[in-house]
């Protein structure tokens, strides 16, 4: 709650405008202006590049040539870049790979994390302290890239989609976050269910999960965004170009200058290379944008604030 807002208990549905408390001296216009410029500038620095990338991806070859590259003022708009990359081919396949890994990976991560968090959340359960310790320690060191790579290689997971899921499957931080939430659930409800004969599986699925929807949504979204954005594990573990996820494809087209296939084929000559590149950026970005409002909602509802506060 900011210090200048009134408590929310008023009947009005709109949040109140800024109301300066009586004790606070009026702001000098210069100071208020400077603050506004800094904050507005910061937001603009984030929004404008995104806007330019979106606009360029929708621009025709003629508009891009006229602008000499990235387009800032809307000209002729076209979907042709998206049509080209989504009509089959490398990018389409990469999108499917990324979607599949994100879906399966998030599901596995969530199931494993929820079970672990619940299993460790009952007070006084068998060996929970050494288990917590065992998990917690891994937050303070990494074993190193080379041994990890050799392990995945020895497990025969090179070029397998599982190499993109299993090694990064659980985040100990997320398990602890969920465990904290589960422990906050009123113990007497759970005890009474136990007295009525419910086992732990039943308590978890029928009582704890429905009560923890928001924390599970947030953590699921975090896992999902993590899988979708992962790039390095694929460069490490996947050599087969047919199995590469979208982020790796994006890197090779936009940052390493590999030409986008289909560019020279008959009939696609009017689609600008730059537009196609930017369209790949946008496709890599859109799923995050879609889930972002949900994330945002839960972040502001305090789940994450509570988490970072510890």
């Amino acid at each position: 709650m900011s210090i200048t807002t009134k408590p929310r208990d008023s009947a009005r549905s709109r949040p109140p405008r800024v109301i300066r408390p009586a004790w606070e001296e009026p702001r000098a216009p210069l100071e208020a202006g400077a603050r506004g410029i800094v904050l507005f500038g910061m937001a603009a620095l984030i929004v404008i590049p995104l806007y330019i990338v979106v606009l360029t991806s929708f621009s025709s070859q003629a508009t891009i040539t006229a602008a000499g590259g990235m387009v800032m003022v809307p000209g002729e708009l076209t979907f042709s870049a998206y049509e080209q990359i989504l009509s089959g081919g490398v990018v389409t396949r990469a999108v499917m790979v990324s979607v599949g890994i994100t879906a399966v990976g998030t599901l596995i991560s969530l199931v494993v994390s929820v079970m672990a968090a619940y299993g460790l959340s009952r007070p006084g359960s068998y060996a929970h302290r050494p288990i917590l310790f065992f998990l917690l320690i891994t937050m303070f060191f990494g074993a190193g890239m080379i041994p990890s790579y050799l392990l995945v290689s020895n497990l025969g997971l090179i070029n397998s989609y599982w190499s993109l899921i299993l090694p990064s499957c659980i985040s100990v931080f997320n398990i602890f976050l969920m465990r904290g939430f589960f422990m906050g659930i009123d113990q007497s409800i759970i005890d009474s269910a136990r007295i009525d004969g419910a086992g732990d599986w039943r308590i978890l699925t029928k009582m704890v999960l429905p009560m923890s929807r928001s924390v599970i949504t947030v953590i699921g979204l975090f896992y999902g965004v993590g899988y979708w954005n992962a790039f390095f594990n694929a460069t490490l573990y996947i050599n087969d170009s047919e199995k590469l996820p979208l982020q790796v494809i994006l890197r090779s087209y936009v940052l390493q200058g590999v030409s986008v296939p289909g560019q020279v084929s008959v009939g696609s000559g009017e689609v600008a290379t730059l537009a196609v590149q930017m369209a790949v950026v946008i496709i890599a970005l859109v799923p995050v944008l879609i889930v972002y409002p949900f994330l945002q909602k839960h972040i502001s509802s305090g789940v994450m604030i509570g988490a970072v506060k510890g």
Partner: protein
Amino acid sequence: MTLTDERRPTPAAPPADPATLKAATAKKRKKRRALFKRDRTLLIMVLPALLLTALFAYVPIVGNAIAFQDYSPYVGAFENPWVGFANFERVLADEAFWSAVRNTLTITAFQLVFFFPVPIMLAILLQGLLSPRVRSLFQSIVYLPHFLSWVIVISIFQQILGGAGLLNQFLRDNGIEAVNLMTQPDTFLILVTSQALWKDAGWGIIVFLAALSAIDPSQYEAAAMDGAGRLKRMWHITLPALRPIIILLLILRLGDSLTVGFEQLLLQRDAVGAGAAEVLDTFVYYSGIQNGDWSYAAAAGLIKGVISVILVLGANKLAHLFGEAGVYQKS
């Protein structure tokens, strides 16, 4: 560390008689067995997470043994010749390794000065200035880049500052010589930091906003009544409220000194060159995965890992010395 829960009442006085002592341990064991039976389901639930952690976090630690071998992927794991510290000697004599160490520490130090304070300042600027609606819109915008991948962030920077990017379009249109900031080793430090700022400075304010919202507004009112101006109130109320979280984050960052945005650096290392953009993590990657010098890279990685653990423990100790809670408790 004891296996039983601390809340369980411990037997009052230890019995002196060995026979009763024996009976007591037997009783304890029986109790533990009953506890195990009771909590079987819970343990089964934890098992997948335990196995994954054991396999992917603990087994590779043992795998670091290859740093003491002359490893070849074509020979069985235990048939590689042991070479003692030869790999470490090679690493420590390698100028490229020291260059990577220098680059890593330079980037860490630079970001400590030019990145670390930015979220704090932004949070204070944001606090109480705007209407709640504008505030939450601003937060929505500045949190967003945190969720974009490094590949996307660098692609966007490439289109703005790169050779064919927006900046150079503008420069060329005005008859000024174009400059590709994405491949300049001289300004790379600034580039890396601005990318980090663009991506994460906004997200960084979230912790500070949480700390700020915990301040009791009546403190400000009381201070104002006593004649404290805006700056005085910030100095005596706002900053002390942020102190614990600032120290905690500072310690975490110091403990992490040897790690600087690995993906970010890896993505740009080829364009900028190893001279400015090689850091410890990319050094390990290039010498091991790319050049196949496995034992050498493992040795370099192990040096980094061990020093990092020491730094984390040291930084935490430092926090305790300053009377702060630190990252973890001693207990």
